[in-house]
């Protein structure tokens, strides 16, 4: 590994006139878990998409393990869980995992393991369209973790998850951390994020207004961060 796991250097992103990200710079070491906080429209999703290689920065750049985000080898180590579940409704759970898994070189045995782990083995061959919301969420999580990513990028993963799914995700994230993986997750569910995070970052209208360790104050009083570093209104 060369340098920090994730490095952003002077990242700007414009959508037309609007600067969604303004001069964002930070370094994240391997094995850290970063909670990315901010109001709606602060730029969390934009930043995560750039890190995932889905978007390009207008100015500046990002590096994953010192390498280009769009390099195939880099992307093989990254797991992405966005706002939507990222699954094909007309295919079954097994077919979905097989398709995505094939792009990462995942073996059939691993797929069966994961179906077991997220409690979907019994319905693995039914189309995803027929699943309940909780089941779809669990499958989406399985898809993101399937290939054993070293860097996990999760965009508001706890939103609209039921209790079982939240517990599952927290368990998986803790296990991934214990395994030395790096995690960046953006969230509104501050409590769950604070429990997992070792570092926190606060984005306010595209600017990184705070980046530092997750303190006990933040853990006990989640709104602390916004009051201290965020701007009024």
């Amino acid at each position, binding site marked *: 590994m060369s340098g920090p796991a994730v490095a952003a250097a002077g990242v700007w992103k*414009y*959508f*037309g*006139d*609007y*600067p969604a990200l*303004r001069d964002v710079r930070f370094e994240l070491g391997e094995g850290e878990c970063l909670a990315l906080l901010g109001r709606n429209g602060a730029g969390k999703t934009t930043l995560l998409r750039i890190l995932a290689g889905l978007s390009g920065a*207008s100015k500046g750049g990002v590096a994953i393990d010192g390498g280009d985000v769009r390099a195939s080898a880099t992307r093989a180590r990254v797991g992405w869980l966005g706002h939507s579940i990222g699954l094909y409704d007309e295919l079954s759970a097994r077919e979905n995992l097989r398709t995505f898994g094939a792009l990462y070189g995942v073996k059939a045995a691993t797929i069966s393991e994961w179906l077991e782990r997220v409690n979907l083995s019994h319905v693995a061959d039914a189309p995803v369209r027929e699943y309940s919301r909780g089941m779809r969420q669990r499958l989406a999580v399985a898809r993101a973790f399937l290939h054993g990513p070293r860097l996990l990028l999760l965009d508001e993963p706890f939103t609209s998850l039921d209790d079982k799914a939240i517990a599952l995700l927290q368990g998986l994230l803790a296990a991934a951390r214990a395994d030395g993986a790096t995690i960046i997750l953006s969230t509104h569910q501050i409590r769950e994020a604070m429990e997992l995070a070792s570092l926190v970052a606060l984005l306010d*209208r*595209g600017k990184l207004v705070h980046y530092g360790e997750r303190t006990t104050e933040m853990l006990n009083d989640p709104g602390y961060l916004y009051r201290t570093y965020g701007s009024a209104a």
Partner: protein
Amino acid sequence: MRTKIILALGAITLPFLLRNLHMIIFLVPDDLEQGPVYRIFYYHLPPYFVAAMGYFTAMVASILYLVKKDQKYDAIAVSATEIGLAFAAVNLITGMIWGRISWGIWWAWDARLTWALIGWLVYFGYLVLRRAIDDPTERAKISAVLSIFASASVAITYKAIEWWRTQHPGPVLSIRTGGGTLDPAMENMLYENTLALLLLGAIFLLVRLRQEEVQREIDGLRRFVHAGN
């Protein structure tokens, strides 16, 4: 500085165009076969060259944009394409008028006219596509890619339509190019008017470019204002 160049070019081009017009109407000799009506030719072939130059410039600018990601190349690409389209339209319309007067029909599916129409549609599609994308960076990128496809397509279509028309002989409407069959006075006039129209095209290009740059400056100022909040 830019304004001075535009004004200087204008000062040269306007008298040049007027002088050409005068010569074309009064001084250049009649064509043996077609009589005076052929004079529209001087406003038919030169626009074709200007349009071709416009499209070529757009292609080069598009490639440069994809390589360098500098927005100014996008401005050149769209300006050059618009100028090209305008002159190509003149080419098409004068061709149709000439055909109507000389052969009694507004349109014929000969190689040149057909290719001109297809080419016009392809580049018009470029403008329509641009309208559908709001984000300037995304718009620049997507249009650059389309412009490259358009150029390749128009080049291939040229040959294709030519072969199509030599396979199926129809009414012969091939427009004579400046070959050995032209009276030297006519040939010179052709080159002179091409030059005049090229200068005119250059003026339009510079004005249009100026427009794009001002737009970008406005966008930048808007960003500045947004960022301050």
